[in-house]
């Protein structure tokens, strides 16, 4: 019989990474944390175009996808 991990549904295979914005964080800082380089914040902004209209305006508690 296959192991449980082989039989799980498609949601179990989600490879998306999410970040919840904390007080004082900016997209630059978040990019620095995940990529080591703040100037790559545009990658995050592009991946969240539906929820981030202005990269300078993110709010505490907002969930951001990290590509």
């Amino acid at each position, binding site marked *: 019989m296959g192991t449980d*991990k082989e039989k799980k549904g498609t949601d179990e295979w989600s490879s998306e990474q999410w970040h919840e914005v904390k007080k004082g964080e900016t997209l630059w800082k978040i990019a620095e944390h995940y990529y080591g380089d703040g*100037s790559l914040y545009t990658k995050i902004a592009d991946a969240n175009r539906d929820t981030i209209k202005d990269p300078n305006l993110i709010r505490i508690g907002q969930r951001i996808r990290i590509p």
Partner: protein
Amino acid sequence: MSIVKRCWSVLGVVLAIVLVAGCSSEQGAAEQALRAAEELINKARDEAAKYVPEQFSGLEAALASAKETMKKGDYKAALAAATDLSAKAKETAAAAAARKNDLMVSWDGMSGGVPKMVDALKSRIDILSESKKLPANVTQAQFDNAKSGLASIQQQWTEASEAYKAGDLTEAVAKAKWSRDKAAEIMSSLGMPVPAAAKL
């Protein structure tokens, strides 16, 4: 010749006929049972040799042994062996079907999931390749390993898909598992979340 002697002669002939007839009937039953068993084995051959090869080898050896017993004229033993073989052939066919189903379930899950892991990894590696410096939790060695590992995963995944198309489920699942585990290992080393279905 006296009447008594004549009677004994007739009785002897009758006994011989009964013995020969009995023996011939035993031989026929054994032959028939062996043919039936061999038919079942041949029917199970393709899938069983592919999915439960060791079990199938044992079955073939048992068939050869039953045929040898038959040749030696031990029809009673050959009949018993053939009867046992038929049951074992059915068991082997069922085991092959179960193993195939198990592999299909594994493949179905991984064929949808592993490409998602590969896409996520590729995206992260592409972004990190543009970075002026790596994140604090990733060393240059880890990043280099991730890049070469991704190429290996893509190669293995291509081979897994080809094996699946060629009908070799065992090989397809083995290569898919390797790809899944390697992708999970690299994702973890880059600080990415490993999908629940791929956690070791």
